[in-house]
């Protein structure tokens, strides 16, 4: 069940951002796992962006 | 022998002449090809053909596009722009905004004056009219000498445009310099900003005075040419030009303010629109004058033609004189249909003009135009265009529309319909925005449509926008010429003078109102008025901090708290337009506007009405989207009697135009000859 609802109380002021693109995560986020870590993103298509672009970029940098 | 009023409209393709018998109201019309090289020649020819004895012509008015064309083609005189030192670059800086957002390649418009011809004068007036740097006589001499030098080196001579900062508050410096120039260089025309357009915004005012200088030579020689032609023809009546504000000015006074003619050729249509709307008893009307290249839209509110404070032919080059509030849309009979990169159908603004014109004209054009589409749809009569003088070729129209149909994967007639629909949506969109921009609700307006192509699209437009009624005047293709002779003598003056409702006294406001009123009346007299003038004065007002003004009429015969009364009127008007007012806020009066007019007793024209009460001449298949091909009754409009009524769908043909009535609409001829089209039942 990769879609997760943020269940912050209504008086909470902190916000969260997509870990792939940096967009806002207003209420819910899509999750996928990378090396045991959960990555939060705003839309399933960015999972693909992560693997096709970000992961490759990181590999190059290492 | 019967006295006649003559109105002439010299358009791009045709010169139209309308002659109205002052006694009977009978109307005679003539259409001849225009002679752009020698504009007066076509006028002369039209006069010859109208068959009147020169002694029968009592009154002659001409609307002309030569000023417009001169600006668009950049053929004016060399201007030297004389302004406050330190601000010579204002015509080049302009307003810094741009025409389109994602166009990195866009080139800023070129002013009508060359940069080396922008010269500075050591003088300075401040916002309150006080003088920071006086204008010394020595400085005047230096400038005049510089102008003389430039005039001598220029074969055709120069024209001078003077624009000092805040001259609209304190014109003395401009006056002194202009007087010196006129004294030393009497052959050099001088346009002075405080005389021409005493309003604020130095760039707009500067461009206005530059255009005035730019056009001077052209207007003067045209006026002379016309006077000579008329004299030769034995015509000795008063003769007038149509101004951009919809008023007339005697030809010998015309040369004093050439900038007044920038919309001359277009104002006639609006006047006709107002006239026929009045005849039909309608007070709120949107006028649509649709010709070959473009459609001009204007607005009549409560029986008055809307005027605007400025007009831009080219983006970024405004002309700030009172003009009829006209907007030109690139949608005409010759507008070309094409596809954008993504595959959306577009119509215009590219146009095939009159030459080669639409494909069906047979002059070699191949791209589909709106006229071609209408011909394919059966809405135009290939044998009766221009009364049969000109044959349209349906086969050429079909082959032009064919590629559009192929691209849209649809039938030929569906493609033709799409072209007309897109053209109509363009016009509808523009009309909605025009009204929105002026704070008007278009739902309360009728649509008055004329020009060669207007009546063919009016019913479609009205339905699209949700307007309840269409009015098609008699001889709609000649409306501009009719309007020219129906125009009144009219002077508009505008002055920027800032007053605040919390700081101004009644005496100050009243004195300014009286001053501008008197100036307008004086100018009217000098333009040829001999009758009883009507004067209207208004202030352009807004809340301090707002940026758009509303015009509020000043009661000229009221004593007492004028300032408080004007503020109250403004609050009320604001509430009516926007739904709220700030009754405690300070109101700022920004401009004073005065209109002086001599209202002419126009003869009620009686267009030849036929005897038939509504039997169609023939049936012809016409295509409609909802119903496909329908055998549609075709009427000759001239054969319809006053009071005749008919149901849509129908096509009404006349020499200069065709009117389309849709299924679900009804049309009838009113007592003045107007055709009124309405929805058969309110939905």
């Amino acid at each position, binding site marked *: 069940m990769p879609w997760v609802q943020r269940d912050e109380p209504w008086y909470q*002021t902190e*916000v969260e*951002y997509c870990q*792939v*693109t940096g967009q*806002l995560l*207003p*209420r819910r986020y899509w999750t996928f796992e990378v090396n045991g870590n959960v990555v939060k993103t705003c839309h399933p298509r960015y999972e693909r*962006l992560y693997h096709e672009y970000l992961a490759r*970029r990181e590999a190059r940098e290492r | 022998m019967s006295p006649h009023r003559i109105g002439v409209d010299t358009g791009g393709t045709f010169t139209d002449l309308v002659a109205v018998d002052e006694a009977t109201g009978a109307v005679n019309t003539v259409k001849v090809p225009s002679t752009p090289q020698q504009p007066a020649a076509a006028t002369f020819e039209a006069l010859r053909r109208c068959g009147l004895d020169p002694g029968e012509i009592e009154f002659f008015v001409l609307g002309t596009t030569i000023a417009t064309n001169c600006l668009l083609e950049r053929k004016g005189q060399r201007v030297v722009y004389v302004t406050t030192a*330190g*601000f010579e670059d204002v015509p*080049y*800086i*302009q*307003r*810094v*905004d741009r025409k389109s*957002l*994602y166009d*990195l*390649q866009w*080139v*800023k418009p070129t002013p009508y004056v060359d*940069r*080396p011809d922008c010269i500075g004068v050591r003088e300075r007036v*401040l*916002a309150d009219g006080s003088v920071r740097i006086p204008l010394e006589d020595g400085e005047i001499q230096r400038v005049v000498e510089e102008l003389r030098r430039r005039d001598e080196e220029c074969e055709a001579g120069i024209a001078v445009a003077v624009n000092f*900062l*805040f001259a609209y508050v304190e014109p003395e410096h401009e006056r002194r310099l202009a007087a010196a120039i006129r004294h030393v260089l009497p052959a050099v025309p001088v346009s002075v900003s405080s005389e021409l357009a005493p309003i604020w*915004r*130095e*760039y707009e005012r500067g461009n206005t005075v530059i255009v005035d200088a730019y056009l001077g030579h052209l207007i003067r020689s045209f006026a002379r040419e016309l006077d000579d032609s008329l004299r030769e023809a034995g015509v000795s009546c008063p003769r007038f030009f149509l101004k951009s504000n919809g008023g007339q000015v005697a030809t010998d006074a015309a040369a004093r303010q050439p900038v007044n003619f920038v919309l001359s050729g277009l104002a006639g249509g609006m006047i006709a629109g107002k006239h026929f709307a009045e005849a039909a008893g309608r007070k709120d009307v949107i006028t649509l004058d649709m010709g070959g290249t473009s459609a001009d839209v204007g607005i009549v509110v409560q029986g008055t033609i809307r005027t605007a404070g400025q007009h831009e032919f080219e983006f970024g080059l405004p002309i700030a004189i009172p003009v009829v509030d006209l907007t030109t849309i690139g949608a005409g009979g010759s507008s070309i249909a094409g596809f*954008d*990169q*993504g*595959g*959306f*159908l577009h119509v215009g603004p590219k146009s095939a003009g009159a030459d080669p014109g639409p494909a069906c004209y047979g002059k070699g054009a191949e791209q589909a135009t709106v006229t071609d589409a209408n011909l394919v749809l059966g809405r135009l009569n290939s044998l009766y265009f221009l009364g049969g003088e000109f044959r349209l070729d349906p086969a050429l129209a079909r082959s032009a529309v064919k590629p559009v149909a192929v691209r*849209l994967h649809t039938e030929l007639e569906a493609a033709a319909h799409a072209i007309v629909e*897109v053209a109509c*949506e*363009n016009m509808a*969109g523009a009309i909605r*925005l025009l009204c*929105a*921009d002026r*704070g008007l609700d278009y739902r309360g307006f009728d649509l008055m449509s004329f020009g060669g192509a207007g009546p063919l699209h009016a019913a479609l437009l009205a339905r699209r926008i*949700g307007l309840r009624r269409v009015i098609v005047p008699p001889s709609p293709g000649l409306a501009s010429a009719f309007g020219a002779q129906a125009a009144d003598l009219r002077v508009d003056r505008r002055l920027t003078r*800032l007053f605040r409702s919390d*700081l101004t006294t009644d005496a100050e406001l009243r004195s300014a109102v009286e001053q501008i009123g008197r100036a307008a009346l004086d100018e009217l007299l000098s333009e040829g008025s001999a009758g009883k003038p009507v004067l209207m004065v208004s202030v352009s007002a807004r*809340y301090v*901090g*707002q*940026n*758009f003004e509303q015009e509020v009429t000043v009661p000229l015969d009221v004593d007492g708290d004028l300032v408080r009364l004007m503020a109250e009127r403004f609050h009320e008007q604001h509430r009516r337009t*926007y*739904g*709220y007012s700030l009754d405690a*806020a300070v109101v700022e009066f920004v401009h004073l506007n005065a209109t002086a007019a001599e209202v002419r007793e126009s003869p009620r024209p009686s267009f030849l009405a036929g005897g038939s009460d509504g039997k169609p001449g023939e049936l012809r298949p016409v295509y409609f989207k909802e119903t496909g091909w329908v055998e549609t009754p075709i009427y000759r409009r001239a054969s319809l009697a006053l009071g005749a009524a008919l149901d849509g769908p129908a096509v009404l043909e006349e020499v200069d135009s065709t009117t389309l009535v849709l299924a679900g609409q009804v049309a009838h001829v009113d007592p003045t000859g107007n055709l009124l089209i309405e929805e058969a039942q309110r939905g």
Partner: protein
Amino acid sequence: MVDHVFLRILNSQLVNICEEMGYAMMRTSYSTMFSEGLDFSTMILEPGGDLIAMQNLNPAMLGQALFSGRWVIEDLGADGFEPGDVVVHNDPYRGGSHMPEHLLIAPFHHRGALRGWVCNVGHLSEIGGMAPGSFASTATDVYQEGLRLPPVKVMRRGEPVKDVWRIILANHRTPDASWGDLNAMIGALNVGLRRLEALFDEHGGESIEEATPALLDYSEAWIRRDIERLPDGTYSGEDCQEDDGVELRPHFLRADLTVEGDQMIVDWSRSDPQARGVINCPYVVCASATYSGVFQVVGGDAPINAGAVRPIDIIAPPGTLVNVRHPGACVGGQTELQPRIIELIQGRILSQIAPERTAAASGGTSGNFLFGGVHPRTGRYFTHYHFEGMGWGGRAETDGNNAQVVPHGNCKNTPIEVFETRYPWVHSEYRLNPDAGGPGRTRGGLGITRVIEVEADEIVVSALCDRSKVAPWGIFGGRDGQCLAYLVKVAGSDEFKTFSDAFGTTSDTKFANVRLRRGDTVMLRSPSGGGYGPPLERAPELVAEDARAGFLSHERAREDYGVVLRQDGSLDAEATEDLRREL
């Protein structure tokens, strides 16, 4: 298969409705930024929040059009809205661009069902905070910038939510203007709702809902086609803001733009961490500017909607300059980082693959100059947000335009006569800067010099601009344009100095609340554009023409272009050839 003609007409009608909303806003607003500045935007969203149409007025607000409305809907939930509700927010961490800009959104219901949203964004001229005029140039956190509103209802079922209004009006220095402006915006939304109602009546809700995905697909396909034509690869570039008002060091933007088939990825990850001062921007501003930069080169006339940006992904890690985290300040990002981003994308990066469609750097700053005080004549308080036109960079075929607004905006300048009538200043000069355009085959456009003297006992001024040290760059061998200079000559002295010299501000380009006195004179000199192509390749006739027009001196014609002009201004072709050979 949706009827293509219907789609095209529907798109026109939707954009037309947005434009009508825009006119309503313009006509009734108080802030000059609305009417003269055209600093506002109007949009229509489909029920899920995706952008389907917007008014084509201001590219700076593209990001908000695409994201902010949708984020509000997701945050509050679509069922949290009833007909007649209006939500307002200006929170930069939740989709705002910078705090003066307020977004309003209202649901559109037709025959009882939610069918979409109308939205607008407008710049309020005063929002509280540490400096009057809504631009706190020396702020170091969001709390100093003004009142921050997370998405809250300002209208409920058509009635004002008085508690929220009272808080807003109590925290703005000019509550009348805010009242007027917000009401103007709400009025405009109502115009949009009415018109949408008529549109849905005309076409029927179902046919419109069926058509809108096709509209988005249409734009998406267009942009994909254009991207496909660009060569695959990764292209990089960088540029900087020369300081942030607090630390006098450059802050770098770095972008890696990858083209892969019909898709584009713009990765800002290597950009500097967010600054202490106000130059940061939130995601939506980075998005606006990135898309704007890309659209200068691809797309062009494609209808702007959510589909148009599907092929373009933007990666902007939170905590960098381009995605500021709480509590970072960001009022300057919208006006200063935007042009920088746009020009980095088109001028430094896309120029590598589409040189004929790009241009050298423009002046690249809005030149914000704000002032306020009590007017000696009326005794009333006044504030004004002034910006300046600057030179555009040279492009492939033509010189850069002189005196033009920044590429992400579209505002008219204030006429001198209006300026001096409203505010106690007197101009002595307002001219283009000769010799200032970056030399090139096509030269950079010229900036403006404006010299104004204080005519009141006191005027308090602030500035937020850039490009005073790092000049607008040229490309393909074109050279830099002239830098910006905002200088002051204190009454009694005869020397123009920087504000740091004269008043001890930290930065010359980002300072607040400097008190000027009667007789002080300010010189605002805006930057000029960079040149495109080698100056020695510029046609000598054009150089001679520039000199004749007064844009170029004979010395610079010689030194920069190798063109020799005689005393009378005529071109000495032979000498030019010789000189150019030498150089």
